[in-house]
């Protein structure tokens, strides 16, 4: 399967990807990560257009974060999705499922054609991640605010099982308005989960408007810091920063890490960028064509 997938071959040849190797030791080729992200965005647009429903803005804002994690950070084995030593990923903001699916298929977890069955009856790609139907999806999510607790449990289990496995969770900024997130924030610090890394997709928008207007979050970094987390802020679209941030978390001992990734909702397609409206709206025919044009030219 992998041999038939030009992208994987390309990545392996140039050593960007670190499947089954220890933590990303080599400096990944940033331009290749950018290229993967561009193709993931193309897939997202295609999937959403064909599905006719789904979440555009939050999938595009999270794309670079997911590419950094899956192509240059996590230890995975797409040929054996249940490989016990794999790192775990929780898409707590489950509505960004299209981005996760596009990344997983590109890694070879399932054939690319399946992407275009998104949200259809009988598809293995549910509207929100479902671990019982999709290879590579570790946790079922969609109801916001629950993923960090689950990630904590996985990190505790990893420790009991002798360690080695790291757990990554991706949160939305609107999502952290949920009280359970802060319960989980306390838990992760209390149990000193240094094998846990949360990334917060700080795109500053939610459904009803700007987070600052709907429910203010600032000072956000200080909040996580005060809750006992090693907290850093990066540009969530700049691979060198994302990778350096992720790398830094490996040196953190005795506490969990929070990477606040500053992003743009709808990133990569000018008409969707920073537009509240495109949270849960998929591209029209014209928008779809313009998006493809832009991404092809990028």
């Amino acid at each position, binding site marked *: 399967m992998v041999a038939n997938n030009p992208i994987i071959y390309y990545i392996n040849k140039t050593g960007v990807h670190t499947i089954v190797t220890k933590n990303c030791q080599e400096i990944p080729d940033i331009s290749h990560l950018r290229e993967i992200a561009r193709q993931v965005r193309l897939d997202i647009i295609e999937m959403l257009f064909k599905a006719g429903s789904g979440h555009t803005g939050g999938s595009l804002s999270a794309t670079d974060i997911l590419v950094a994690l899956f192509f240059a950070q996590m230890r995975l084995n797409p040929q054996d999705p249940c490989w016990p030593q794999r790192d*775990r990923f929780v898409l707590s903001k489950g509505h960004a499922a299209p981005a996760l699916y596009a990344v997983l298929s590109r890694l070879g977890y399932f054939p690319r054609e399946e992407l275009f069955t998104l949200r259809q009856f009988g598809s293995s790609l549910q509207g929100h991640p*479902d*671990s*019982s139907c999709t290879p590579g999806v*570790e*946790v*079922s*999510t*969609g*109801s916001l605010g*629950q*993923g*960090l*607790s*689950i*990630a*904590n*449990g*996985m*990190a*505790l*289990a*990893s420790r*009991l*099982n002798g360690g080695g496995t790291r757990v990554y969770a991706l949160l939305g900024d609107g999502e952290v308005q949920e*009280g*359970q997130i802060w*319960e*989980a924030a*306390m*838990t992760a610090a*209390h*149990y000193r989960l240094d094998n846990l890394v949360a990334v917060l997709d700080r795109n500053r928008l939610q459904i009803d408007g700007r987070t600052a207007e709907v429910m203010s979050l600032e000072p956000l970094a200080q909040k996580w810091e005060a809750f006992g987390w090693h907290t850093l802020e990066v540009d969530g679209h700049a691979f060198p920063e994302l990778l350096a941030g992720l790398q830094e978390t490996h040196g953190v001992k005795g506490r969990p890490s929070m990477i606040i990734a500053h992003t743009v909702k709808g990133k990569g397609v000018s008409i969707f960028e920073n537009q509240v409206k495109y949270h849960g709206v998929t591209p029209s025919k014209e928008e779809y064509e313009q998006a493809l044009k832009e991404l092809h030219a990028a």
Partner: protein
Amino acid sequence: MAAQESTRVEYGKALLQLGKENPDIVALDADLSGSTQTKHFAKAFPQRFFNLGVAEQDMLGTAAGLALGGKIPFASTFAMFATGRAWEQIRQSIAYTKLNVKIVASHGGVSVGEDGGSHQAVEDLALMRILPNMVVLVPADGPETRAMVRWAVEYQGPVYIRTGRMPFPVIYDEDHRFELGRGYILREGEDVTLAGVGLMVHHCLEAAHLLAQEGVSARVLNLSCLKPLDWQLVVDSARLTGAFVTAEEHLATGGLGSAVSEVLAEHCPVPLQRIGLRDIFGTSGKAEILLKHYGLMPDDIKGAAIKALARKNGR
């Protein structure tokens, strides 16, 4: 009088024993480890016990993650807070993907007593029974509690077990074994069926005794496995006796009474009287007084049986 044991105390002992046998068992609590009795496990296995503080939603989510990591988590708090506060976490994070989490919640029903209505779960069975993939169990005594907890360790999937605060009389032998989906006939009879869960099983037995003194022979069932329900036993009993009474320390809607109604309505409609709280919350008071106040005593069950019999005989 039979020995008295409280199901929560027996849970605590069983968990400790099973913890010694199986290193994959972990326990979680939300600042009620004394009340729920997970404290014994916590003391013996501090590395495998996680107190989440007063944060039930986080506790159930953490349990889900531990299950995903191959552990067998037992999460405990009061029935009200487990099933009420964290219902959606149980639905989304546990039941939806059939994760191997065991929720053993104490303080079910009004026999909680003085703490009052805020702490008496009278809707937990309804909240759990409605969930796909969830197994719902209400042990009637100590041996059944131990058998259920032992069974739950072997079973792959989510299980809800409701325990009580008050000591109940012991019904089963020490070597009792639990089987999923099986109801138990505790007393044979032909005129009416009395079916209960938890403490009410004992009250059904006493009611049967009272009825016998008046020449009425009652079959008594323990439907401790509320979901999946032993519907065949319910139907067979309805066919045999032609009249049915359910009894639970719970609202008369959503729990055992509803489960039996559903089966009878579809397969064998016979007169049914439901003993349970009637669209009302609990209140403070001594357990014995509350059980009387809400009509949950053997005498009340006997009265319901006589009503069901009258309906059966067209009176």
